[in-house]
């Protein structure tokens, strides 16, 4: 029986996160947390020609927040920074490919929040 939330690929990304760690030196960075559960996430970005050339997430959190960071990181590398700054919650949920209940929404959006924080300076939660 496959779990509706904890799909194999989610667990795989949680246990073997892609693009995790730090990037020194980097051009952009942001760090934030989910006030409800204390999860922490930071991002380092290297920009080349207006595009995300390199990116690393770091921090700790639940399977949903960590897997989201990992899954989306694969899409983000190579994306124009300007495009990143316009990404919305829907995009993230779509990448994730699972239904997210309101209680886990902030977990799923934490990585987008720090990405947008890094690219736009806006620290608010994505809608």
């Amino acid at each position, binding site marked *: 029986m496959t779990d509706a939330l*904890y799909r194999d690929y989610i667990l795989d990304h949680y246990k073997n996160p892609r693009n995790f760690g730090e990037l020194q030196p980097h051009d952009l960075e942001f760090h934030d947390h989910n006030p409800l559960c204390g999860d922490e996430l930071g991002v380092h970005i290297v920009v080349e020609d207006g595009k995300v050339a390199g990116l690393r997430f770091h921090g700790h959190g639940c399977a*949903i927040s960590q897997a989201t960071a990992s899954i989306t990181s694969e899409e983000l590398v190579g994306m124009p920074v300007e495009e990143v700054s316009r990404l919305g919650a829907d995009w993230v949920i779509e990448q994730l490919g699972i239904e997210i209940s309101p209680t886990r929404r902030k977990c799923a959006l934490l990585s987008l929040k720090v990405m947008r924080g890094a690219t736009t300076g806006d620290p608010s939660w994505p809608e």
Partner: protein
Amino acid sequence: MASVAGGTPKARARRAPAVQPFADVRADFPVLQREINGHSLVYLDSAASAQKPRQVIETMERFYSYSYGTVHRGVYELGREATEQFEGARERIASFVGWDPACSIFTRNATEAINLVAYAWGRDNIGAGDEVLITEMEHHSNIVPWQLLCEETGARLRYLSVIDSGELSLDELDEVLAEGRVKLVAVAHVSNVLGTINPVGEIVKRARAAGAVTLVDGAQAVPQMPVDLGAIDADFYAWTGHKALGPATGLLHGRRELLQEMRPFLGGGHMISRVERDHSTWNELPWKFEAGTNAIAEAIGLGAAIDYLARIGMDRVREHERELAAYALERLPEVEGLTLYGPDGADGRGGVVPFTIEGMHPHDIAELCDREAVCVRAGHHCAQPLMRCLGVGATARASFHVYNVREDVDRLVHALGAAREVFEL
């Protein structure tokens, strides 16, 4: 523990009957009839907020349906009934914890009670160079009000450390007090994360000897053990009804002389004696600190909750909590990769058991327990400084009340095993 009568606690644990002595109260809690995801509900989050027995729900319903009115002012029958029930509840609640009703103030919750002291006592009695001493195991509600006060007054906020056993060190307390700058000691009676039962009577004694005022945060204590405020003798004692099987209303018990000399906190109706254009004089205690229309039905509902607990007997409630904690401490280590936090054994702790599992974040633990209708909490439990001391970002936590039985712990252990399977651990 004074409340454990006869026998060593160990001996008692061994004698624990297979059938829970409290199975009979379960029928009083309608929520326990719920099924979630095809499983009967196992509620293990009473340290966050407790479920309510029908006696409480019905008391509030009856009051709203037949006797509702405002208190103290209505000359008519409904007003009389409401006042009698409301002040009657205050008297029974005060006597339940052994304090003077006139010095027992209804607040919104424990948080407001603590803020009341920070604003109305703190701002006139704490200044630059003074120190406020709290502990690393405090709930945010017993941290942030003091941060705000210290920021405003230039006082310094200090923390007693939590030592490895999950306890406070009285030696460290003595050392800090000996420096002579501590004006207030604010400490939890029972930690909401570790469950540690702190020796608050002793802490109060030492603090008072050093000239410091004391505040005890009893949010986790009053609901689950006998509490005698006369014996503890703190200057202020705060707690909250919703964890004690009651609705949303808090209590601040204070020493009369302090409450009398304090300025009021919130200004408005009912707390005044006389309002002139430029100034006012204040009502007597406790009403001086109860501005505006009270949560009348809630106070009356809390009265019913206290009656309910008193009928069971707080010694028995404490023994029940201790026994369930002991059973959880015995069974949880069966789960591979599980780490327990808090004092060794169940004697020095309330009915609270925090834990983590390697390779599975507490958030995911709670989510997967919910699949089997087992409600546990995950997060920092409003105790971020303590989380940092423990070296974790979050923990899972199971906590108990009168309606829990040993089978609930079995169900938790089962759910954790299933969770590990989902995570392929």
